[in-house]
């Protein structure tokens, strides 16, 4: 079951390969969630896994997210490494109590005695024309919660490696999967990890301004950077990859090169990741900044019905508008 080395594959397939190899290598690894078995999950990320590893390793659960995460915690206390699938972003909240008051805190509560190697996979974000609660970006809730690690890949290669790394981490990891990127194919090198789990990565170097993004918005920022070339602007794109911790050294290094920064995410701007990046980078690089760090993101509104999502979400135009404003300082 060695995964193919370099190949073009979708993120769904990359995640599937990561789960498959983890199940294969470690008998303690379990996959659990609603419809992850015969169906292979509503996005087919777990396709074929139950067939190959059995119902005891890949398990359909009752419809109860608190139950899923709560029993995963119990299984972890028993020495297992459960990987939980939450069906959609908006259905994380029934499990929120388990995640915030228990999963995040048990290691600290036990003064390091108990380990909670639980990965919670959450397909997140919008732009796919879905109904309510199927397009949300709740990452800020988790990044604010000490004891959790929060990561999100933007490419199939990262998806594969970051999931492998998350599974082998002894801390709980909230693993956000940008569902609008699930089906995009890209070449992926599955022979060695591109970076550490929490390292940010310069996706596109540039000199005039840094676009900071993660997950679904990385691709959009690359598009924006390419569009900006026509206007003679050379934008750097930095993929955070991890939201807890955030690789501020990489953010700072980029800012010191470009001196201007725009943070882009789908989640509402208010109390979102952009605020943390802006606040900390402004503190770290006060004298380097030529303009305030600007933010582009969702508005302070429940995620709207899908026929308004194009207006609600960041677009290339909205990113370029912010770039214009940042460059006008």
């Amino acid at each position, binding site marked *: 079951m060695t995964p193919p080395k370099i190949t073009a594959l979708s993120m769904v397939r990359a995640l599937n390969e990561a789960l498959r190899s983890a199940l294969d290598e470690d008998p303690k690894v379990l996959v659990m969630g*609603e419809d992850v078995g015969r169906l292979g999950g509503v996005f087919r990320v777990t396709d074929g896994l139950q067939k190959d590893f059995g119902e005891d390793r890949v398990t359909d659960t*009752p419809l109860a997210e*608190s139950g899923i995460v709560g029993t995963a915690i119990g299984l972890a206390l028993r020495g297992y490494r459960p990987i939980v699938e939450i069906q959609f972003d*908006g259905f994380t909240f029934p499990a929120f109590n388990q995640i915030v008051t228990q999963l995040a805190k048990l290691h600290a509560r036990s003064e390091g005695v108990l380990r909670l190697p639980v990965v919670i996979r959450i397909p997140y974000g919008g732009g796919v024309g879905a109904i309510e609660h199927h397009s949300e970006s709740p990452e800020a809730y988790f990044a604010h919660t000490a004891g959790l690690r929060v990561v999100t890949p933007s490419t199939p290669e990262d998806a594969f490696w970051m999931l492998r790394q998350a599974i082998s981490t002894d801390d709980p990891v909230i693993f956000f999967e940008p569902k609008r990127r699930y089906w995009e194919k890209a070449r992926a090198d599955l022979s060695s990890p591109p970076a550490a789990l929490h390292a940010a990565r310069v996706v596109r170097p540039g000199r005039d301004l840094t676009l900071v993004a993660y997950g679904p918005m990385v691709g959009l920022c690359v598009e924006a950077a390419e569009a900006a070339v026509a206007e003679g602007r050379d934008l750097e794109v930095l993929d955070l990859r991890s939201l807890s911790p955030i690789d501020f050294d990489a953010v700072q290094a980029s800012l010191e090169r470009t001196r201007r920064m725009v943070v882009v995410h789908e989640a509402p701007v208010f109390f979102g990741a952009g605020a943390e990046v802006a606040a900390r980078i402004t503190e770290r690089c006060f004298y380097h900044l030529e303009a305030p760090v600007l933010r582009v993101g969702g508005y302070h509104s429940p995620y709207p019905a899908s*026929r308004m999502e194009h*207006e609600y979400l960041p677009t290339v135009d909205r990113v370029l508008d912010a770039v214009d404003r940042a460059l006008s300082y």
Partner: protein
Amino acid sequence: MSTDVADAAGGEGGAPVRAHEPELVQLLTPEGERVDHPAYAIDLTPAELRSLYRDMALTRRFDGEAVALQRQGELALWVSALGQEAAQIGSARATRRTDYVFPSYREHGVAWCRGVDPLSLMSMYRGVTNGGWDPHATNFHLYTIVIGPVALHATGYAMGVAKDGADMAVMCYFGEGGSSQGDLSEAFNFAAVNNAPVVFFCQNNQWSISTPYEKQSRVPVYQRAAGFGFPGVRVDGNDVLAVMAVTRAALDHARGHNGPVLVEALTYRMGAHATSDDPTRYRLAEETAVWERKDPIARLRTYLERQSLAGADFFAHVDAEADALAARVRDGLRSMPDPGPTEFFDHVYAGQHALVDEERAQFEAYLSTFEETTR
């Protein structure tokens, strides 16, 4: 092992034992024969029987039309109620106008009986709105996508009804999958403790997406009720008469200040979970075929025909009505306008909120730069 414990477990074996399937309340057999039940009687006029048929047939028609319209790209998604018409029409027709109904997201037949325009239901699945209708107009609450919370809303509403001393009951629909959510159990408990006039109506269509009922619970859903101190009943959910009779009794019970009731209607989801779903991945055609023979509409039709309660002209008339409804829905959906680009700012709060105002102003200014460009 003491006998007490072993008895209640239903056996000594190691594997989970499915409790003996309890008898379903049934008044109309799958073959369309009228049978009696010692506890539940119903006596409907021919006109009433025909109108039950009509509601089921029209529901099935606009529901099927929605599936087609989804394929044509007019809807983002549709969740079909195919096969559950008796459970929905029978229970909905048992409610009074003054009762208040909390649906889940598949109660198109209930919505129909309450007077909600099918186009309103579709506006939500089209992506035009997250709501779609005014619950006050029909006492039919909005669909709720997150499974669980609404059972507590229904319970709270019923607690309010009790405080008001109003002569009404509250209906709360959910699926057998939903019964696993902690919120359902909390609702059962709050309703019992507060003696709230609420009927919990579970459509056990045996599938929660790809998850069969035996992975959801070890025992039938209706048995949950006794553990919280109130009655539960299991009814043949494909028998519109039995569903109506049992639901009427349950609503009377609730209205009569006797507290909650849990009704489990055993039915079957004939179609996919939703238009995005492919049931061939997880269930056998044979299983669906078995349930085809229990079809709720065919069953009533057989009865109406055999008893000469309805003739060919009636069925032709209903078919024509269904065609007209489908056409209206099709046209209405195709010409349904999209929302304006800033509408999502409109109702975040009932009152004024500085942040929303600020973001709206910024967004409008941004949009206006395009207007200038195009001018």
